């Protein structure tokens, strides 16, 4: 600022300004830092910096036993801990080659989809905040709270559940849980329309998000995007449908994609709307899971107290609320994993930021970061 010089009337020397956004900034969704070159309100370049939340998860996973890794997976995408547990457990189960009891399968799908709703509610609410509407956030939290209450009843935790375990789930559902969740679904489904009326179809909201941060399908695939960010660009890819795991093949659901209703295909509005529509699909999946909830055990009898998978390596990927969460697990036959590599969806998704923010406005940058919906716990691990 000090170096701005005015050399004469009508001939003002202008400079680009280097602006540091984050790591402490309300709209970077955690400790994400972007170094922005700006020309007034225009963003010329945006350089993402990550690593402020690095916790050496992958290294820790090599020094603790297989069972002890699950709680650490909670802390990656802390908004969708159930889905993280699930992916890891599926990987270890694949190494072990165990069969999971059907009741555990159904419970897993129920909690994973409930957690997806909770996570998308958070994305919906914070996105409203990014755009400047504070109220939808509180509405989203009201309903998310109910899901968190269910989880608290099921496993005693509100955020880091450690509920899905290798071989099944930690505990059976408490008495009356199925009915309560069913009642919630009945309550929640019309609420989605309320959200749409409140935010999705708000004129200002559409003005702010349509045609902003457009990702073409080719670009999205080239950057390895996944989840709602990729589906927002019109690519119908959902691992639950394409490579079903955990019994998803028995469930009926649509895969919503961006259609460019309000602007171009792959703009912020499309990405946002995919999440809202996915909530509706998740409600349907949970309802199906509740309806066919089989009786029986929730933990496989084959799981021993010390797990020693045979030598080998697996890669298991699941559809996290934020995209494709992959676990690459290498076992050397001991009780600790030899290597655990996580393919985190947020990490891959945020990589496109620089590409799509060139030439946008400062307010758009916030809208774009919000629409990519990152969780820094997962980006940095």
């Amino acid at each position, binding site marked *: *600022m000090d170096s701005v010089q005015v050399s004469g009337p009508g001939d003002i020397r202008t400079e680009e*300004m280097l*602006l*540091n956004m984050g790591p402490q*900034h*309300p*709209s970077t969704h955690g400790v994400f830092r972007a170094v922005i070159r700006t020309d*007034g*309100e225009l963003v010329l370049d945006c350089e993402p910096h990550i690593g402020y939340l690095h916790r050496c998860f992958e290294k820790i996973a090599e020094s603790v036993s297989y069972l002890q890794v699950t709680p650490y997976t909670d802390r990656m995408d802390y908004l969708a801990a159930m889905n993280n547990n699930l992916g890891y457990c599926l990987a270890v189960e694949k190494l072990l080659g165990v069969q999971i009891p059907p009741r555990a399968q159904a419970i897993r799908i129920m909690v994973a989809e409930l957690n997806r709703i909770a996570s998308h509610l958070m994305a919906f609410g914070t996105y*409203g*905040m*990014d*755009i*400047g*509407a*504070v*109220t939808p956030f*509180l*509405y989203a939290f*009201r309903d998310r709270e109910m899901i968190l209450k269910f989880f608290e009843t099921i496993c005693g935790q509100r955020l880091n559940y450690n509920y899905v375990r290798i071989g099944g789930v930690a505990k059976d559902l408490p008495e009356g849980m199925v009915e309560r969740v069913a009642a919630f679904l009945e309550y929640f489904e019309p609420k989605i329309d309320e959200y749409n009326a409140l*935010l999705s179809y*708000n004129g*200002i*909201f559409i*003005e*702010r998000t349509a045609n902003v941060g457009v990702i073409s399908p080719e670009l999205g695939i080239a950057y390895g995007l996944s989840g709602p960010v990729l589906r927002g660009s019109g690519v119908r890819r959902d691992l639950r449908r394409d490579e079903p795991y955990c019994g998803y093949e028995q469930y009926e659901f649509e895969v919503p994609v961006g259609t460019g209703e309000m602007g171009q295909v792959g703009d912020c509005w499309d990405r946002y709307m995919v999440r809202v529509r996915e909530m509706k699909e998740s409600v349907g999946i949970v309802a199906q899971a509740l309806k066919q909830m089989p009786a029986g055990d929730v933990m496989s009898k084959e799981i021993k107290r010390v797990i020693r998978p045979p030598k080998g390596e697996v890669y298991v990927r699941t559809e996290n609320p934020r995209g494709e969460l992959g676990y690459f697990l290498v076992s050397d036959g001991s009780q600790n994993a030899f290597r655990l590599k996580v393919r985190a969806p947020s990490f891959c998704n945020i990589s496109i930021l620089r590409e799509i923010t060139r030439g946008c*406005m*400062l*307010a*758009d940058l*916030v809208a774009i970061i919000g629409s990519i919906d990152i969780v820094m716990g997962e980006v940095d691990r």
Partner: protein
Amino acid sequence: MIAVMASEGLAHDLLRLFPALDEMSPWLSVPLLGLLGCALVTGWITVFALFAIWLERKVAGHIQCRLGPMEVGPHGLLQTVADGIKLMAKEDVIPRSADRILFIVAPVVVFTATFLLFVVLPFDKHVVVADLNIGVFYLAAIASLEVIGVIMAGWASNNKWSLFGAMREATQMVSYEIPLGLALLSVVVVSGTLGFQGIVETQSGWFWRWHVFRSPFLALTFIIYYIAALAECKRAPFDLPEAESELVSGFHTEYSSMRFSIFFLAEYAFMFLVCGVATSLWLGGWNTGIPALDGLTGPLGIMIRTSAMLGKSMFLVFLQIWIRWTYPRIRLDQVMYLCLKVLVPFGFASLIGATLWELAFPGRVWFLQI
């Protein structure tokens, strides 16, 4: 001596009540009257801000399925007082690299500009600090002073984010003064005076005599004024200068303690002021809309008319709060688009329209002679 200077308003009434004032040397009585006016305005701003902040939080709470403040006092009525005390007890931080003088002066400039505007706002026939015969002009002139304080604050903070906020504010305020001025002008054209009391009095009688109901063009200017005033107040959806999700809090990011609360106070005072002006110019000011009530004399009449003015203004304030907690924020280019391509053309059109309408149907409500 002073009686000549103050033909109307508070000074005039005081002189009538205390003739001794007029016999005093003007060197004594003028500052005395000035101080009294200051005390009244400051008192009102403080009381209003205390109430409005509580109202804002309460309304926001109820809109967002919460209760809002409930702990301090009945229904949290004293929450703002508690917060004020807390704010004053905070350390007053001036960043080391800030421009010290500008940093200190900025909140004062912002507050003074807002404060000065209250001088012309009439609450009743005689309840006004000074009824200037160029009241509307004065309003438009002084209202632009605030932006200087804001730019000072943004620049002096030596913080790039604050500077962003200040530049946004300058862009927005300067642009929206045009539609605002056009809307004010159309009322001036119709009522034939620049003085607030004069404008209010042209709207006396039944409520359909209020300017907003007088002609379609005046109704349009009311809407233009209200939108432009929202932008002038930096209220959502025009809260770009302090967009908390982009700039954290814009030009007053670096301010703390009392200096921050002065900004805050000025913001809420300005909120009431623009609504008070809207009431005076379009919604009949202190006229209740029922001639029998307007004609009442004595303390009861003053109370009724002042409440009418306050009630109407508070409704508009409530509307601002309602809008803020409902709508998202628009982008800077959209702000400018709305101003330059929508409000300004419509403002000009309605100014011309209102003028022609007044020529065609002088003194009528729409076409009717009522």
